[in-house]
């Protein structure tokens, strides 16, 4: 009886019910209002406005069910301002709107992990199809939908893969604050992302979508109603990213503890800040581009229809104006995590702090001036190609700064090969290959061969999977003991690392060769002479999937079944989060700490970064 009573209220269950209910409300309302007139234009017997309205009303219902409108209504009715929503309580607060940044961080970790898993499963299905050059395991349309969901899931959900879980959890602690600047917006970004992920999956009920994660026009305008799921998904992701970035910027700029000057900020916070700037500036452009695409489909506008005066380049430019900063949104947190973790396991200060910050800022700035390298062969103004070649190659310089700072931090250190360190070291290897093959793609003459081939696909898997996902796992092994107060099994972690590193390279390195030999991306069939490479890659990919299952086993085993308590500072770090008890108490600090140095004072003696106002639980 009590359990049943606890299910009633503003929580995930209510939200799902209201979300589904809202979908039908929108569906029927739009049908009732506009059905006949739209059918007049339409060649497909399907009223798409009602689908769009269904999704929008569904999202609205979902947010109502979670209780996002309770506070505005309470304020309307004259209640005093408050910040507390489920800040205390049991496991239930993980299933609803919670304003504790630590709960949101863990929600993000599990939520994004779930969708990462789905995206990975899609990759397995794609590789199954590519075992044979001409045999169809999946119908061509299903195959393209799998490619599209895999790409959108990874590029959409994993964009917040570091800032969501680790940014939300750690930034307030690292800057000595008790919360984020906008706690409700923080929760909103997470739940919007979850709604988006669910919406993307519903595309299978409406015929899927054939455009891949880029959604190029006018292909998107002529395809199945499942296209709308992609648009709404990515638009919601864009809104979520914008809000997440805004929240991070405001928090880091305004809520730093006394003494935490810009040159004492942990490099991870710098990474979050620069990423947040990219998010705020890039993501709204995506939302605009997708809104116009939706209007082209449901309201017969012509933004992207060339025959009616629109332009296909408009979409390409808007998309990549978002899309290229986006790959740095994905890469920069990885840089920052590597530079944050290396000093701890090399027992040395971060080398060249200002250089490292300069590298992050340089990438941030330059990443807005490179997007047309995605259009090198598209027929853009030919005069622009040398400029975009130059700007793209210039980005190697700030990226190189990250490399030298990391390498010099290792120099003459006392290196321990713990699991997080192994993942960070692998980052150097992977990102080196990803970065150097990027130089091939940035060179317009070379790019003529490699553009749109498996070469570019292998390149961005090296930078994103080798860059982001490896550091994502580094962060999990490094910080989850702090977030949960429980150890993760080291032995299984090492097996996970080595299998993942081996099979990752065995999966993606041969794809450079496949691309060089002429295999285009996103094809359901390929030349017979490429079968050996493709079979090799598919088998490696399955083994890589097995490595991920091993991680899942380790994660669940360590955190649910073994439950070995972790010490407060298992790695011997001097950073402030490790001076707090594990897991961190609700309000982080009893007294706001005062900073007198950066957290990298290894070998310099002196205190850890908290001289005055000892935080809660510090002995």
């Amino acid at each position, binding site marked *: 009886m009590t359990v049943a009573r606890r299910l009633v209220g503003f929580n995930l269950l209510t939200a799902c019910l209201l979300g589904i209910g809202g979908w039908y409300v929108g569906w029927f309302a739009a049908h009732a209002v506009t059905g006949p007139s739209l059918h007049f234009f339409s060649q497909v017997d399907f009223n798409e406005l009602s689908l769009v309205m269904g999704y929008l009303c569904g999202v609205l219902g979902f947010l109502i069910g979670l209780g996002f409108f309770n506070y505005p209504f309470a304020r309307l009715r004259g209640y005093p301002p408050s910040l507390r929503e489920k800040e205390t309580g049991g496991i239930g607060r993980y299933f609803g709107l919670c304003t504790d940044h630590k709960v949101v961080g863990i929600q993000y970790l599990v939520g994004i992990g779930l969708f990462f898993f789905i995206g990975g499963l899609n990759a397995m299905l794609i590789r199954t199809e590519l075992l044979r050059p001409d045999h169809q395991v999946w119908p061509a349309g299903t195959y393209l939908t799998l490619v599209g969901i895999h790409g959108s899931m990874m590029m959409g959900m994993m964009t917040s893969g570091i800032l969501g879980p680790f940014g939300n959890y750690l930034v307030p602690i690292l800057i000595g604050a008790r919360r984020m600047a906008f706690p409700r917006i923080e929760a909103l970004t997470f739940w919007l992302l979850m709604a988006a992920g669910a919406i993307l999956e519903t595309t299978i009920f409406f015929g899927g979508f*054939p455009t891949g994660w880029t959604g190029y026009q006018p292909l998107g305008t002529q395809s199945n109603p499942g296209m709308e799921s992609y648009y709404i998904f990515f638009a919601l992701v864009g809104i979520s990213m914008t809000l997440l970035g805004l929240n991070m910027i405001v928090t880091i700029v305004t809520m730093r503890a006394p003494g935490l000057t810009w040159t004492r900020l942990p490099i991870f916070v710098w990474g979050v800040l620069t990423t947040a700037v990219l998010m705020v500036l890039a993501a709204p452009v995506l939302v605009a581009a997708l809104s116009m695409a939706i209007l082209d489909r449901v309201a017969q506008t012509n933004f992207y229809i060339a025959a009616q005066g629109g332009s296909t380049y408009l979409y390409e430019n808007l998309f990549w104006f978002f899309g290229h900063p986006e790959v740095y949104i994905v890469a920069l947190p990885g840089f920052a995590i590597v530079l944050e973790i290396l000093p701890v396991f090399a027992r040395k200060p971060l080398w060249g702090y200002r250089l490292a910050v300069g590298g992050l800022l340089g990438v941030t700035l330059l990443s807005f001036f490179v997007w047309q390298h995605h259009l090198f062969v598209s027929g853009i103004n030919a005069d622009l190609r040398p400029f975009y070649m130059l700007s793209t190659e210039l980005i190697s310089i700030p990226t190189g700064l990250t490399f030298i700072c990391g390498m010099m931090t290792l120099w003459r250190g*006392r290196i321990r090969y713990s699991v997080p360190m192994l993942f960070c070291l692998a980052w150097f290897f992977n990102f080196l290959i990803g970065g150097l093959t990027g130089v091939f793609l940035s060179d317009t003459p070379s790019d003529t061969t490699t553009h749109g081939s498996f070469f570019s696909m292998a390149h961005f898997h090296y930078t994103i999977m080798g860059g982001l996902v490896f550091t994502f796992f580094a962060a999990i092994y490094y910080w989850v003991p702090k977030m949960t107060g429980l150890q993760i099994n080291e032995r299984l972690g090492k097996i996970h690392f080595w299998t993942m590193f081996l099979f990752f390279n065995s999966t993606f390195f041969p794809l450079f060769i496949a691309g060089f030999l002429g295999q285009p991306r*996103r094809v359901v069939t390929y030349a017979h002479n490429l079968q050996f490479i493709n079979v090799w890659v598919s088998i490696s990919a399955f083994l890589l999937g097995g490595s991920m299952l091993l991680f899942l086993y380790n994660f669940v085993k360590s955190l649910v079944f073994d439950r070995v308590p972790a010490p407060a500072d298992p790695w011997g770090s001097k950073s402030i989060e490790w001076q707090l008890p594990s897991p961190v108490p609700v309000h982080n600090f009893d007294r706001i700490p005062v900073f007198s140095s950066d957290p990298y004072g290894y070998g310099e003696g002196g205190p850890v970064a908290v001289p005055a106002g000892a935080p809660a639980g510090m002995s």
Partner: protein
Amino acid sequence: MWSSPGRKVVTSWIVLSVIATPIVAFVLGPHLPPGNGSAQASEQVLANTWMTAIVTPVICLLLVFFVYVLTQFRHTGGELVDGPPLRDDAQVRVWWTALTSLTVLFLAGFGTFELLQNGSGGGQGPDPIAIPGGPKIPVQVIAQQWQFTYRYPTYGGLETPQLVLPANTDIELHVTSLDAIHSFWAYELGVKADANPGIDNVAFVKTRGPRVFHVRCAELCGLWHGYMFNEGRVVPMAQFTAWIESQQRDFAPILKYLPKYAKVYFPDPQRRAG
């Protein structure tokens, strides 16, 4: 930094690079894609060779550095001891930044130089800037879901499903699309140009001796994108003339139903969902 471990790393790096770079450039280089099917393709092989040669010392540096660091500077059990608190080193900072900047600027300069020679086979849009001199045979590539057809405007606007090109000739390719965005990729000729509806995307290629080449669509264009490929041929001029006359004969009955040759086409009705 210039203590003995530093010198060891730098010396080993230089030795390894001096050995490895020529091997990569001269042994691997000629095998890099896309082969020597056209002047543009050879140029891309040259570009790829330069790229590979330049990244070789970078890979050597990181290899030497990490092998040295990860074996020499490891924590060997016992009490955790801090390393020396090195926070900066002007020499490393200056050398690294200078070397990466020089490399990058050289690459961009070299790429621009190559690009302005003859466009390197990429689509240059309606107003190309890198135009090879001399006479050129225009060929229009029309992409549609899901096949390529080809028109020869100087031969009466003939349209055929096969691409046949004369050997040792400059070809001016006009790539356009009737529906979604496609990409015309003639792998062995080193040509790639997106086909956009309503856009005349121009690319140049100077063919060499007779050969067969493969054409694939390199931009996701819908359901049967994976099956959008065919074969083309480069043949001697005499054979080309004979072929095109036979095509003109064979396709004469339908030629009058084709739209007049134009840079772009907007077929009706537009396929559109919603």
